[in-house]
C-alpha cells in the first residue's frame, strides 16, 4: 500500500454519524411541514396584504407628528420610558442574583438553585408577567416597567454571572501587597473589572427591551402596542403604517447608538 492510499483510509470516517444526523434533521423537517396549511389563504387575504403594503407606503402623517397624547411620538416616548426604567429595575435585581449564581463566589448548591430560578424566570413568557403585574398595578405603563424588569433579569443575570466567573483575581494579590483592606480590594480591584462589562450588557438589553416594550400594549401594560392592535383590528392600515414606521426608525436609532456605546466600552 502506498502512503497515499494509507492516508486515504486514515481520513476521518464519520459518515455514519453525519448520515444519522441528516436523517433526523430531514425527518424533523418533514414532520414539521405537517403544520403548513394554506386553506385560509384566499382572495381576501391577498387583498389585505395589498392594503397593508398600501398603508405602509401611505402612513398617517398627522398621527406620526402631532403632539397630543395619542400621537406616535408620545407613545414612542412612553415606550422608551418603559424600556429604560424596566432595564434599570432588571439590572438592580440582577446584580445580587448574579453573585448568588456565580460558582466562584457561593457554594455549589446555592449557585445551582439560583441558576434554576433564573431558567424558570427566563422561560415564563413576557406577556404572562404582563398580565400578572396588571393585577398589581392596574393596566398602566407601570405594569410594563415591572414586566420588562423581570424578563431582563433572566438574561442580564446570566451574562453578569459570566463576567463574575471570569474575574481576574490576581489583581487582588497585588492589592494585598500594597496594603489594601477587603473593602478597598472590592472597590478598586473588582468593581472596575465588572463595571464596564455590566454596563455593556445592560445597554444591549435596553436595546432588546425596546422591542419587548413595544408589544406589552397587547395585554394593556402601556406603550405603543395597544394603539397598534386597535388600528389593526379595525383595518386602519395607514395608522398601522405610521406606528410601525415610527417604531422601526426608533429601534434602528437605538440599536445604532447602543452599538457605538458598547464598542467604546469594550475598547475604552
Amino acid at each position, binding site marked *: 500500500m502506498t502512503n497515499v492510499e494509507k492516508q486515504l483510509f486514515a481520513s476521518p470516517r464519520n459518515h455514519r454519524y453525519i448520515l444519522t444526523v441528516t436523517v433526523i434533521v430531514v425527518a424533523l423537517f418533514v414532520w414539521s411541514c405537517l403544520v403548513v396549511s394554506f386553506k385560509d389563504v384566499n382572495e381576501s387575504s391577498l387583498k389585505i396584504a395589498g392594503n397593508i403594503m398600501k398603508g405602509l407606503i401611505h402612513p398617517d402623517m398627522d398621527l406620526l407628528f402631532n403632539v397630543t397624547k395619542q400621537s406616535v411620538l408620545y407613545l414612542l416616548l412612553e415606550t422608551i420610558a418603559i424600556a429604560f426604567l424596566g432595564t434599570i429595575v432588571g439590572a438592580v435585581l440582577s446584580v445580587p442574583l448574579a453573585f448568588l449564581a456565580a460558582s466562584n463566589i457561593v457554594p455549589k448548591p446555592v449557585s445551582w438553585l439560583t441558576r434554576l430560578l433564573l431558567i424558570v424566570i427566563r422561560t415564563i413568557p413576557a406577556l404572562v408577567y404582563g398580565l400578572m403585574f396588571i393585577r398589581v398595578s392596574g393596566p398602566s405603563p407601570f405594569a410594563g416597567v415591572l414586566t420588562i424588569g423581570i424578563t431582563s433579569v433572566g438574561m442580564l443575570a446570566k451574562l453578569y454571572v459570566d463576567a463574575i466567573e471570569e474575574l481576574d483575581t490576581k489583581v487582588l494579590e*497585588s492589592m*494585598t*501587597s500594597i*496594603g*489594601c483592606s477587603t473593602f478597598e480590594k472590592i*472597590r*478598586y480591584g473588582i468593581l472596575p473589572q465588572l463595571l464596564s462589562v455590566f454596563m455593556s450588557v445592560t445597554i444591549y438589553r435596553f436595546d432588546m427591551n425596546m422591542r419587548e416594550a413595544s408589544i406589552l400594549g397587547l395585554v394593556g401594560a402601556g406603550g405603543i402596542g395597544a394603539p397598534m392592535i386597535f388600528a389593526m383590528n379595525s383595518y386602519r392600515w395607514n395608522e398601522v403604517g405610521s406606528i410601525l414606521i415610527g417604531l422601526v426608525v426608533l429601534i434602528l436609532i437605538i440599536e445604532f447608538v447602543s452599538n457605538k456605546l458598547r464598542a467604546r466600552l469594550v475598547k475604552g
Partner: protein
Amino acid sequence: MIEFIGVEKTYANGTIALQNINLTIDQGEFVAVIGLSGAGKSTLIRCINRMHDITGGQLNVDEVDVAKLKGKQIRRFRRRIGMIFQSFNLVTRTTVMKNVLVSFVPDLPLWRRWTGIFTKAHKIKALEALDKVGILDKAFIRVDQLSGGQQQRVALARTLAQNPDIILADEPIASLDPVTSRMVMDDFKKINKEMNISVIMNIHHVEIALEYADRIIGIRKGEVVFDGPTNKVTKDILGEIYGGNFDEIQSSFEENSAHV
C-alpha cells in the same frame, strides 16, 4: 535592613518550604534569588511582606519583628514594601493612571475611598512615578492596550508611587520577551541605584541575574546553598544550586545568549 534569623516555613499540608534561613540584606542592595522551580524562592520573598507567615525563627525588617504584626499593622507595614508579579496583576479594563493611583488608596479619607476621587497632589505623584519608568505618555490609556513590557512598567510605577524602601519582585520578567526583559531590568537597576531602594528579585534567567544583581542567593530545597557577590559565582556553584542539573542551566544559558 532585612534579617532572617533561623527562619522556617512549613505549609499546612506538611511541605517544608524553607528551613534554617539566615540572611542579612542591607538597604539599597540588588539581590537576585535563584534556584529551581519549587525550591522556595517565591516563599522566601513572600515571607518578607507577610504574604506568607513564617512558622519558625525570626524575620526583622528595619528592627520590626514581622511575625508579631497584626491586622491593620500588617497593612501599614506593607505600605513600605512594593511588590511586582510575573503576571503584572493590573486591572486591565481601566486606565494606567487609575492603576497607579490604587497605591494611594489606603491613605485616603473615607469619602475619597468610596468615590475614588483623588487629590491633585496624588495625581502628580502618580504621573511622576510613570515618568520615572518612561511611560508618562500612556497615563490615560487603558492597560489592555499596552504591551507586556509596558504593563510591567505600569506595575513598577504603581509600586514606586508607594514610595517604598524595598521592592520585592517575583519573576518579573518571566512573561516578557528578551528585549523587553532587559528594558524592565534596566528600570529596576535605575530605581535601585538612583533611589537607593532595595530590590529582592526571584529570577529564572541566570544570565540576566548575573548581569544585573550585586548579590546572588542560591536556594535549593528550602535552604540557602550560596550567598555572595555576583562575581564570586562560578559554574560549580551554579551546579550546586541547581542540584547538578546542568541541562537546565545549560539551556537557560543558551536561551539567553541566543537572545543577546
